[in-house]
């Protein structure tokens, strides 16, 4: 009961912060609010027993994202313009979509159900055999690096591609006086 209460309170705080992000027009304040949102998300993930994910979300979401957003704001300008028209159509669209999604989730399994399909197919084998087969007690590391190693190779390639893409976009090509190009 107390665990559910903690999760409910954290999610309510995150919803309030999202409202603040939508309404605030000073972009530096928006970046600080999004950093706070990431930290609350990390805490909610710890309450849901996802400790690896919480550490990654805290370092990547609240750390690196905030630094990148502040760097971009330094180069772009820190004030959002006032909207010209009241956004009624997006609001109505958002309400219709949320109604449809709520109707869709009525058929999903309830919170903390041991017989839900997510808990019954291949996961008992991972939990049972990971220590015996890989010698690593942290099942998340064992699954990430050994059982699902191809996915992690793809993810590392995605990170590499993002770095290469940023280098390609933001590279300075200096022209010498006689017309030569040098990067």
């Amino acid at each position, binding site marked *: 009961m107390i665990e559910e209460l903690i999760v409910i309170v954290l999610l309510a705080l995150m919803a309030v912060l999202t409202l603040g992000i939508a309404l605030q027009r000073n972009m530096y304040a928006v970046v600080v609010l999004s950093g706070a949102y990431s930290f609350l998300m990390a805490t909610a993930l710890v309450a849901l027993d996802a400790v690896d994910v919480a*550490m990654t979300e805290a370092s990547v979401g609240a750390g690196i994202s905030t630094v990148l957003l502040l760097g971009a704001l330094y180069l772009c300008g820190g004030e959002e313009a006032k909207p010209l028209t009241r956004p009624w159509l997006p609001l109505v669209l958002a309400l219709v979509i949320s109604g449809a999604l709520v109707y869709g989730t009525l058929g999903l399994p309830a919170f903390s159900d041991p017989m839900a399909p997510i808990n019954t197919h291949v996961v008992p084998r991972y939990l049972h055999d990971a220590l015996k087969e890989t010698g690593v007690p*942290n099942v998340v590391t064992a699954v990430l690096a050994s059982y699902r190693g191809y996915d992690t190779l793809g993810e590392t390639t995605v990170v590499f591609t993002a770095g290469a893409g940023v280098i390609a976009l933001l590279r300075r090509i200096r022209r010498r006086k006689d017309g030569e190009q040098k990067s």
Partner: protein
Amino acid sequence: MRGFLVLRVVAKLLMPFMLVFALYVQFHGDFSPGGGFQAGVIIAATIIFYALIFGLPAARKLMPEPLVETMVALGVLIYAGVGVAGLLLGGNYLDYFVLAHSPVHGQERGIFWVEVGVAVTVSGVMTKIFYMFAGRKRSAEEE
């Protein structure tokens, strides 16, 4: 922020602990939450911290651009190299159980090198992206 003595002294005291914590998260990731991604991001955060306090040219002297660019590619090569090592030693691509005398030992060795590759790439990419964003002048000052 170079002029503030307290910031400079505290930054120099904190940086070794941050790096040791990153290494702890990397290598203890088999027994506690952690692993390559988190460790790579903490290493990048250490360099960004240094750049914030001492300025970008000092950080570029500490971690030169060619080294960072090499790290970006080296991690992916290490990961793919572990897979090729599995091929050369008799198994399929990314098989770990052929890497050592016993299958469990091979799994541990494979997981170790794979996480090292991930940490090297992630720290290189985050540092390089920070260098590119922070090193770019605003367009008004460029003339």
